[in-house]
């Protein structure tokens, strides 16, 4: 059931990498091609993988079973078709944008329905559970705002897109993607790093500040208060800084110090988040479009991208192991999880993508188009290795189970 999310997500990651070659970073964040690429990456890769991971992780995190896990069978076809229509709408036919937006909205409402009904069963209300509730409320609001924007672009509904774009991004990226990553990392970083006994206050404060910031940004847009949106952005910077400090605290007490592909991906991902915060801060002061785009680049391709790809090397082997080898425990020798990913291919994937993200990021920052293209080409090679690695992991031991 979960495999289509990971296969499609990685395939779309590869397509998104290829599509980078058609981007001119000098066009700015209002350009339809860039908007289409952002939706391809966020809906097709990030959301697809998050939803697939949630199908597996929600029961782990909230310690109760799904309300109806079968709903996940309809989520991915709706999300995929909606995303394709939206990207097509941005790239060539704005009239189909609302249809794509509607399909995406329906897929997310189904996901939210299962998540909320599952969370209602939770007895142990941890910070991660609270984070999940808040993140899902923000996602719903963000998608409704986004759908209304598609109606404005494709069906002529009157709405000031430039005014609502920031809130749409803050609701979805800050309110959902970042809060979800915060909540999950509080479980996954200590789990994989074997870290215990760290102070959780920074992430509690980060979660509260981020939630206030997202609501403040939304209210500021509704009431048209420009200083409110600026204050919200300042609070978001503070929340991310506290979150980075929390990750540093977890890192400091981890017992597992081997630098496998997961650990290296985390280092690069959080390093990119630091770079993104610094660049975002400078962009807010200077108003430079290049710096703003490079901050968004390091946030999406460096931070979100590497956090997801790094965890795929942990989650997919676990799912395959669970299905094919768990029943054989005690009867024959079963492989360890670290034998179930292609270490060499993963190293190449990491190397090409990391260097590509840095070079392309510098290309955006400097406005030097060829540098961006060169970096993008390396990312394409890295994404090819990622795709091959995912198929390698999914096929591991397939014949033994037959």
């Amino acid at each position, binding site marked *: 059931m979960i495999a289509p999310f990971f296969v499609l997500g990685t395939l779309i990651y590869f397509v998104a990498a290829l599509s980078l070659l058609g981007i001119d970073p000098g066009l700015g964040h209002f350009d339809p091609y860039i908007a289409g690429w952002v939706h391809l990456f966020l809906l097709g890769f990030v959301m697809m993988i998050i939803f697939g991971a949630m199908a597996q992780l929600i029961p782990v995190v909230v310690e109760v079973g799904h309300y109806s896990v079968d709903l996940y069978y309809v989520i991915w076809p709706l999300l995929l078709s909606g995303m394709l229509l939206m990207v097509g709408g941005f790239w060539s036919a704005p009239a189909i944008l609302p249809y794509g937006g509607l399909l995406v909205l329906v897929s997310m409402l189904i996901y939210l329905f299962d998540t909320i009904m599952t969370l209602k069963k939770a007895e142990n209300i941890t910070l991660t559970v609270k984070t999940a509730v808040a993140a899902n409320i923000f996602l719903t609001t963000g998608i409704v705002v986004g759908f209304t924007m598609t109606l404005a672009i494709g069906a002529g509904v009157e709405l000031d897109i430039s005014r609502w774009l920031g809130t749409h991004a803050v609701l979805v990226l800050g309110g959902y993607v970042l809060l979800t990553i915060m909540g999950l990392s509080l479980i996954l970083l*200590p789990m994989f790093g*074997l870290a*215990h006994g760290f102070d959780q206050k920074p992430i509690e404060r980060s979660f509260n500040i981020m939630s206030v910031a997202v609501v403040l940004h939304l209210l500021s847009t509704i009431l048209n208060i420009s200083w409110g949106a600026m204050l919200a952005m300042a609070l978001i910077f503070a929340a991310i800084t506290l979150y980075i400090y929390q990750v540093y605290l977890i890192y400091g007490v981890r*017992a597992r*110090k*081997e630098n496998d592909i997961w650990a290296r991906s985390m280092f690069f991902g959080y390093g990119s988040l630091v770079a993104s915060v610094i660049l975002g801060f400078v962009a807010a002061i200077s108003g430079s479009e290049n710096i703003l785009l490079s901050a968004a680049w390091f946030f999406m391709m460096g931070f979100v991208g590497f956090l997801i790809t790094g965890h795929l090397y942990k989650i997919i082997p676990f799912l395959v*192991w669970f299905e094919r080898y768990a029943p054989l425990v*005690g009867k024959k020798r079963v492989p*360890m999880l670290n034998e179930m990913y292609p270490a060499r291919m993963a190293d190449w994937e990491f190397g090409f993508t990391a260097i590509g993200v840095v070079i392309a990021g510098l290309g955006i920052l400097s406005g030097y188009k060829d540098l961006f293209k060169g970096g993008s080409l390396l990312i394409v090679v890295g994404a090819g290795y990622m795709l091959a690695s995912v198929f390698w992991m999914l096929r591991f031991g397939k014949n033994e189970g037959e």
Partner: protein
Amino acid sequence: MCAISKEQVFDAIRNVIDPEVGFNLVEMGLIYDAVIDDECNVKVVMTLSTRGCPLHQMLTQWVKDAVEMRVEGVKDVEVEVVWEPEWNISMADDNVKKALGAL
């Protein structure tokens, strides 16, 4: 009087490997105690390296199976998972600490 010893129970559990780290649960320091009564009923008191462990139910079942299959004369086996004291790396054997880079 039951002739089963704690060592026999611990030796049986040494066959249960955590697939994520590749070490058995005893050398990981996850098995806190084994209580054996006069009737040869065994209660294993253990913990997990993290509360949200997705293998929670499977690991406890494997511990139960290992004791039932490998300890001769055992009757009922119960596995209790506790969170106090919280596990930390100092509870693991030196070979585990060394392999994980914690020594």
